[in-house]
């Protein structure tokens, strides 16, 4: 059974490229474009890996991640954060919020597929 990846991203073209790349790498992909919907989706059926964009309407990525980490059921969920901002603060905020990996847009296809694959094979983090 294929590992399931939930993409949370509001840019349709980026979603398109990521879906293509990750499906090709053998993942099942589901997509959400808004923070609250993503949270609901994760709680209902937790994916194996969550790819989370920072800049989201309604609820930004960091907040989504914080809420997930606060919930015992999703505390260990592997999360890869995507952001268009490359500043140091963002990286720190991401790790503080509990991200397992951090990739800056524009990304290299290999990097992102490798990162997702790593997280998928590692399984839920042991924190």
């Amino acid at each position, binding site marked *: 059974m294929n590992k399931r990846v939930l993409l949370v991203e509001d840019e349709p073209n980026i979603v398109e*490229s990521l879906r293509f*790349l990750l499906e090709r790498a053998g993942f099942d992909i589901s997509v959400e474009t808004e923070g609250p919907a993503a949270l609901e989706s994760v709680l209902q059926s937790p994916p194996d890996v969550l790819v989370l964009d920072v800049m989201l309407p309604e609820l930004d990525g960091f907040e989504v991640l914080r809420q997930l980490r606060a919930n015992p059921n999703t505390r260990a969920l592997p999360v890869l954060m995507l952001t268009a901002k490359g500043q140091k603060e963002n990286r720190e905020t991401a790790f503080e919020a509990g991200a397992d990996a951090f990739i800056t847009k524009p990304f290299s*296809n290999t990097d992102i597929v490798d990162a997702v694959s790593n997280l998928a094979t590692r399984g839920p983090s042991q924190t």
Partner: protein
Amino acid sequence: MLSVDVILAVCLGYVVLLFAIAFVVDRRSRQGPIQWLQSPVIYTLSISVYCTSWTFYGAVGSAARNGLEFAAIYLGPTLVFVGWWWLLRKLVRIAKEHRVTSIADLISSRYGKSPSLAVIVTLIAVTAATPYIALQLQSLTRSYQVIAGDADGYTTALWIAAGLALFTILFGTRNLDANERHHGVVAAIALEAIVKLLALLAVGIFAVWGVAGGLADVFADVSMDAIRGSGDLFGPRWAALMFLSATAIICLPRQFQVTVVENTEERHLGTASWLFPLYLLGMSLFIMPIAIVGLKVLPSGANPDLFVLTLPLWAEQDELAMFAFLGGFSSATSMVIVAAIAVSTMVSNHIVMPLVLRVLSFGKSMRGDVRGLLLISRRVSIAAILGLGFLYFRLSGGSDALAAIGLIAFTGVAQFLPSLLGGIFWRGATRLGALAGLIVGALLWAYTLFLPSFGGEFILSATVLAEGPWGIAVLRPQALFGLAGMDPLVHAVVWSVGMNALVFVTVSSLTNPDALERLQASLFVNVYRTVDDGASLEATYTVETEDIYVLAQQILDRDHAARLFEEMAAAQNALHGMPRVTDAVIARLERELAGSIGAASAHALVTRITGTQSVGMTELIDIASETQQLIETSRQLTEKSAELERTAQQLREVNERLRALDTQKDEFLSQVSHELRTPMTSIRSFSEILIDDENITADERIQFTTIIHEESRRLTRLLDEILNLSRLESGTADIPLAPVALNEAIDGALDSVTGMTRAGNITVNVSRAPGDVRVHANDDRLRQALINILANAVKYNTAPSPMIELRAVVEGDRAWVDVIDNGGGVSREEASTIFDKFARGARATADQGAGLGLAISRAIMQAMNGDLRVEFAGDGTSFFRLELTRIPGAAE
């Protein structure tokens, strides 16, 4: 017999000499102090103006009539000078410390600088001085008539008066500061003092040893009655004369002038204390013998008042007669000169100047003119006083009534005595007391002595004198309240001075002094008790706590003052009552006062009241103007500091804005980065897919390249917008303004969005501007902004039946285009950030632009002197409003 020519020549020579001395000394003294002029001997000689022609001629006349009585006139001053330590020294000290210019000034200054007191004292002084000056003119005229046989007395008197006026004006008003000595005058007076003494001694020696055969011969067959005179010697009249003369040596304006005002060193009083009595003794030495010899040898009926002159003439001693005449001339002229200076100072300072200043009080910048004005005022006063003297002489017809005028004047000025002595020895003396005493005394003096002296020819008729006004015998001027059978002089002295003193003391005890009076009282009475070498700090304050308490109450409010003094008493561990006056208390008080009246004034007041330093009127004026300046300066400073504060505030605001701009710039760059990275991400990702993956289908390749193309265009558009906005915001965008027809612009913009509205099935309602409204704008840019807003309204309208309303409103010189949609609008929080760049940030999608639309639109509107903002209608719904400047005059 002396020829008139010789007499005139000698007189003229003497006058020229006097002028020359005065001139030379005056000129010389301007280069620096003249040593011999500062000597106590000169000081003493100048005091001898006491000996007028009334002494020179009149003393012999008095001796011939009343025996030894004349001596009382010189014994009174002798006692005052012998006891200089107790009275004169204090007067001189006070006058020096308070820069007193006259007796009127001293009295008014003591009683809280009362102008009314000064005026009253001045009036009394003028009233007393005028007949006295007339008396001098009369003796001059008579002596001239005797020696020259010239009959026309008035012409002589007029010439003399004019000459004296000239001399006095020339040398008496050189400088304005009354504290500066009139050097020329003093030198001339000193010479005259010597001349008159020597002349009288010469005549006396001639009478005793030339006419008679020595002293024993003179007195050989003199009866006791001749010595006793008509009155009873050493009786009430003698006592009254002693009292009057002792008073006159202080209270006569001219004596006050030479003894007190013109004193340069207190030490000189020590010399004068024996030298002046000696001078008086010298003047008196041969009075009795001359009188006795004159009575013996001169034909009966000869006027004893001129024995000094007629005795040498009788003996055909022309040179001696000439010398005697010069002595008399000296006595009279020196008196007139000094009296004119003293009285004119009073008249000028206390009557003329206040009036002139009141009249001219509009001119604020007349500092320079005041000096000139003061000089003119002094000179006019001198001329007026001498003119008055001459007039009096002329009107009184040179009658014998003048002979008594010396004592009448003495009694007049004796009215100053209670206020003067009370003022410097009694702290309780008040202004009202002094005022009441002086007025009562002056009125009684006029009623009982001055007016009766006219013998029923002036105001009081002979009937009134004999029977009292309206026949009321009790009110007879010379037997007031039945006090008959008394010497008229004693009667007048008892009534006027007695009642004066009584009223003064009574009213003083019934009234309260105000703050300034208290202060001056303290300073005058305790004039010696100044800071005492810092030997004992607590003992140095002459002021009573009570006084500073009253002062504090005047300036602070009652409760505040009470609290302050309680605190200070508590600080000294005093269980009750007032604190002792210590440095700490004074310093504290000064600080408290400074809070109310400013530091300069507070300091001045406190130093004054504590007697640690005296401040003259000039200083007070300086302080006042300084205070004014301080107030002005502090007002300017306040303004300045307010200005500085404003500038600082502006700087802070600018700084704030710069900071905000800096933050905005960082945010902008970070957002630009984000906005650029988003399309770049897709482009990069898909191009990598296209490069790496050989298994992609043709459809997929077309789809991916389309996305790449689309995102590339988005990038370009974004960069264009950023550039555009940057230009608009920096003001470098070239937006030429021209009159634009508002309705045309609206229609143009609507045309551009027709495609969008049709696709979204959106209803558009338009209400155009009435008539041809033109606005200052750039046609293209205005359309761009309008299109932006309309597009915005189209894109975000999610209502089931979307509708847009476009409304043009004209009001005054403003024109508005409101864009309203039913898509829910924006909240008030959003309204404040909606124009920020990338405000829609995360929402921006490929087809929706980069979120710079509103920011650009607003920048465009502002570049056209308009604005773009979110407005809220009465029902809370929001709409966009584009504001423009309307061109007036266009048809409506």
